[in-house]
């Protein structure tokens, strides 16, 4: 089992349901081939740096997972066949420093997913008044964390 990251770019012309279906399709393929998905990062639709197949935009999504080497071959084969994927990029993380970064990314995005799930649960369980306040609080926390990260990055770049 090795640590991987798989970035895929989907056509922007698909509807929301179709993109979700494609992402789920990837997920299923990965899990079928013995991969354990650690985190999923949604980058959303963004401008491509250059047109691909005459398209200006693309829907970006990233999977972080551990998998045996044969899984990558199979997934890449399927991505190449499927027309909706206009670009993909799989990166192997091997060195300790790389793995540290991988773990950090996984924590970052896995925790976000957990938070969302928790919010949904609280919405179901508790009365709407309380949940609204909780929602606000959790959102604030997330935004604070994000701004902190951004400032760090800015510092790093400025320095």
């Amino acid at each position: 089992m090795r640590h991987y990251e798989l970035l895929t770019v989907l056509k922007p012309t698909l509807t929301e349901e179709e993109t979700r279906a494609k992402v789920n399709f990837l997920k299923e393929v990965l899990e079928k081939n013995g991969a354990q998905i650690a985190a999923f990062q949604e980058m959303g639709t963004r401008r491509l740096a250059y047109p691909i197949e005459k398209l200006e935009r693309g829907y970006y999504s990233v999977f972080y997972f551990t998998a045996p080497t044969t899984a990558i071959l199979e997934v890449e084969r399927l991505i190449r066949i499927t027309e909706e994927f206009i670009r993909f990029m799989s990166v192997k993380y091997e060195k300790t420093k790389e793995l540290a970064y991988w773990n950090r990314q996984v924590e970052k995005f896995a925790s976000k997913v957990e938070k969302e799930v928790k919010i949904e649960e609280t919405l179901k369980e508790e009365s709407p008044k309380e949940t609204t306040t909780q929602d606000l609080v959790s959102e604030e926390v997330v935004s604070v964390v994000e701004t902190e990260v951004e400032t760090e990055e800015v510092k790093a770049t400025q320095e």
Partner: protein
Amino acid sequence: MAEKRKYARKYCKYCEAKVEFMDYKETKMLKHSLSERYKIMPRRLTGNCKRHQEMVELTIKRARAAALIPYVVNTKQVIATPFDLLNQ
């Protein structure tokens, strides 16, 4: 006597920021090492150390393949503010 230096001494910005790993999805990090036309800047101009220059090369090439950074910016496809692409 040696002449006084006119400009500040060049140093590796990535060393100062203690970058251990560069993610090709974070294109802001690569800004120092790209020219206006999105060429990879040489080490003699940026002052990057060898280790970080090699990391920069790899990450820029990955980002290009993933369509996060353009391969070329020429007169045919002019972008008014080229570095806005990085700040998406």
